[in-house]
């Protein structure tokens, strides 16, 4: 084992009632697969002593009830579960059984105000950008920031752009965005600093619905380009950005 590998698992204190467990560094589908498996196992083993579990790219945040568990007990239990996980080996089965979501996107400068600049900066045509953004499946690495916001990765190298220097104060719901190696849909109107290249008519967060979001960590997403007519028929809004 190299030094880099032996740094993980790493467990840190994240307050009086939470610990954060890292299984690796950066954005790595294998690490994210193991985070998912660990999330399920921690939930099954300790569920009634936990009040929340938040998986992300390479980490799992475990919020526990201090009245039923001590941090030492929790750490010991989690270490055991990680040992078992390592003995079981390959965790990639977890994401192979995941759900594939297809999201229809209207890619156009009228709803994607950064599309033309993205083309210039990447030396690609708008059609190339659409093709590259739609031709691969993305993985849901994390859910958070805002309700139903799925961090999707990884973008092809050529499509990677920095975040905006000055985040916009208001981005319409359904905006499809890219930043660095990530892409996402803004489920609700919110501020944000990612590059907007299109819009979907799909509802990814409805506070009045029964379910918060159709997506979960480990799921897969593929974007599909649709015409303006198709977008409008699906009740897509052409409201421009302020």
């Amino acid at each position, binding site marked *: 084992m190299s030094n880099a590998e032996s740094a993980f698992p790493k467990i*840190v*204190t*994240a*307050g*009086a*009632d*939470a610990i*954060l467990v890292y299984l690796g560094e*950066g*954005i790595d589908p294998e690490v994210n697969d193991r985070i998912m498996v660990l*999330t399920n196992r921690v*939930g*099954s083993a300790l*569920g*009634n*002593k*936990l*009040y*929340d*579990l*938040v*998986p*992300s*790219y*390479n*980490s*799992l*945040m475990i*919020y526990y*009830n*201090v*009245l*039923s568990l*001590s*941090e030492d007990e929790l750490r010991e239990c989690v270490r055991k579960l990680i040992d078992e996980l390592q003995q079981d080996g390959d965790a990639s089965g977890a994401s192979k059984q995941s759900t594939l979501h297809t999201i229809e996107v209207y890619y156009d400068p009228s709803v994607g105000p950064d599309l033309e600049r993205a083309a210039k900066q990447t030396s690609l045509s708008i059609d190339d950008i659409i093709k590259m953004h739609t031709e691969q499946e993305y993985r849901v690495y*994390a*859910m*958070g*920031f*805002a*309700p*139903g*916001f799925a*961090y999707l990765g990884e973008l092809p190298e050529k499509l990677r752009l920095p975040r905006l220097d000055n985040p916009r104060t208001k981005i319409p719901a359904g905006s499809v965005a890219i930043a660095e190696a990530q892409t996402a849909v803004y489920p*609700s109107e*919110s501020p944000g600093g990612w590059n907007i290249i299109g819009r979907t008519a799909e509802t990814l*967060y409805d*506070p*009045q619905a029964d*379910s*918060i*979001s159709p997506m*979960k*960590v480990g799921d897969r997403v593929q974007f599909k380009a649709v015409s303006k007519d198709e977008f409008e028929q699906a009740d897509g809004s052409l409201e421009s950005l302020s």
Partner: protein
Amino acid sequence: MIKILDAGMRTTVQDFGRFGYLSKGLTRGGPVDEHAFLWANRLLGNSFNAAQLEITLGGLEVEFQQDGCFALTGADADAHLDDESLTLWQNFDVKAGQRLKIGYARAGLRLYLAVQGGFQVEPKWHSCATVERDSVGGLSGDGSPLQSGDTLRFQCDTPQPSRRVSWAYRSDYTKTPVLGLIPGYQYDDFPMSAREAFCYEDFEVSKDSNRMGIRLAGKSLETPEKGLVSEGINIGSVQVPSDGQPIIMMHDRQTLGGYPKLGVINPVDLGKLAQLQPGQKVRFSRVEASVAQQQLRRFYQFFNVRLPCQGGDNLRS
């Protein structure tokens, strides 16, 4: 029922919060000063989770349309029941037709108004906590604050003996509080200068603070060089963005974030931070996690807090 005659600067419905949905990006919400909130429920013999009004800065006027019993805790402000001047941190009987008028906070920032039995507000995802950025909770269900003309139902069925909170348990919001920092997250990655400055310097509460985060202004803290991918953010986390000015994440925080964090404020101290007015000073001092955990256990036991834990099916969908 009570009728809101004047909603003041900003008044929201809060129960103890929405638990179990962080993995979907839905934050907890709930009272930013848990100490004052829990005392109000305790004064009335309510469940810890009974819904109350969180009144920012004051200015609320309500009319009771039925008999009942209420309690008022938190920031120091004038309060009148009709013409009678009230002292905070105790419970009062009220008759139908009486009006409660709360002035503006002299010290502190938020008051809590509880009624015996709790306000009856339709929950969404197991809570009626108002979270504006998530468009959820509150009387209208969409995260908006209360407005003049709104009415809230409650059922007051158990007469309560007169109770008041002893001075020893109340906070003096005019003082500069010293809050415990539980070192954690990337604490070890921060340069020594930043770790020391955070616990030795005074910081000032910025006016850009809200229920998502309290922004501090003070000596700029050096941040770790190593970048982070997004990870879970606990309530009380001390985030340090690249400008070196710390932000303490509060109850409406985003669930994930990628800024480095020095650790987390002791949860039993966090209410004092929530009560600071912009421009007030605050100091920090390191506290061992085990000490903070023992304090939190006592705090939950004293107020009979039963956190909703979801069993093996923890990740709600």
